[in-house]
């Protein structure tokens, strides 16, 4: 008489356990190998993975110049002198005319504040006019 368990039950459990181990190994082995060796992942992902190299994008469109870059480059180009701009002379003209008007107006206002012009001496008075402003 043998003391061993019946071989049919042991063989079935071992087979199930062996199949599970093999399956887990097959599923997990490529990811482990990729992490260790730096290979490309086999599946595409929407999120950047840990191994993405942003410094050297493979998409050529990322290397094209952006509009902002063009504006900066255009601004860096030396422009014409300010005195060749008509806007400068327009503003300068307005400032000069305004200053002259302010001075003339100030003189006129000051004169008016001080009484303005004294009225002329009447002819009948024969020059007998005197006092303030005369």
């Amino acid at each position: 008489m043998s003391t061993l368990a019946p071989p049919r039950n042991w063989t079935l459990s071992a087979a199930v356990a062996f199949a599970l181990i093999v399956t887990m190994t097959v599923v997990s082995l490529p990811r482990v190998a990729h992490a260790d060796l730096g290979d490309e992942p086999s599946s595409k992902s929407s999120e950047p993975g840990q191994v993405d190299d942003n410094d050297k994008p493979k998409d050529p469109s990322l290397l094209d110049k952006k509009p902002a870059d063009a504006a900066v480059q255009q601004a860096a180009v030396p422009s014409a002198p300010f005195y060749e701009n008509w806007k400068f002379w327009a503003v300068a003209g307005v400032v000069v005319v305004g200053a002259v008007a302010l001075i003339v107006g100030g003189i006129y206002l000051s004169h008016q504040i001080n009484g303005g012009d004294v009225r002329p001496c009447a002819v009948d008075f024969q020059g007998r006019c005197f006092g303030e402003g005369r």
Partner: protein
Amino acid sequence: MRRLMLALVLAAASLGVAGCNDFHYYDVDVTFDTSSGQFAGINEISTIQVMVMGVTGADNGDIQIGPNANGLPLVTGAHLGVFEFATFADSGQLTFVIRAFDDATSNPSCQTGQGMKTVDATSMTTNNVMMTVMKTGAGCVTP
């Protein structure tokens, strides 16, 4: 826009201030007194060669007329005419004094007449003042 409004306000204020410093004119009409005991008509009045008018009080000023200018010597009548005094004063009193000399200078010993009038300074533009020159001395000319 705000600066323009400020300028307009200042200009209006300045014009308002200008109203406080207007000219006022005092037209002093001078006539010689030819009544009894005063100037003996045109014969004596025509000897006056220089007249000096002075103003004191709220304002000061003076003017000398003649000789042979400004209506002197007077050849007809006893009405010399108007002296016009311009001032900014519009309050207080103004005293007008006029002296007549029968000499080409304003030598006090040759003064022959004087008139004086005190009036209130007003805010009116033109103030008319009547003044009479009274005989005060024989002067330097013997008629």
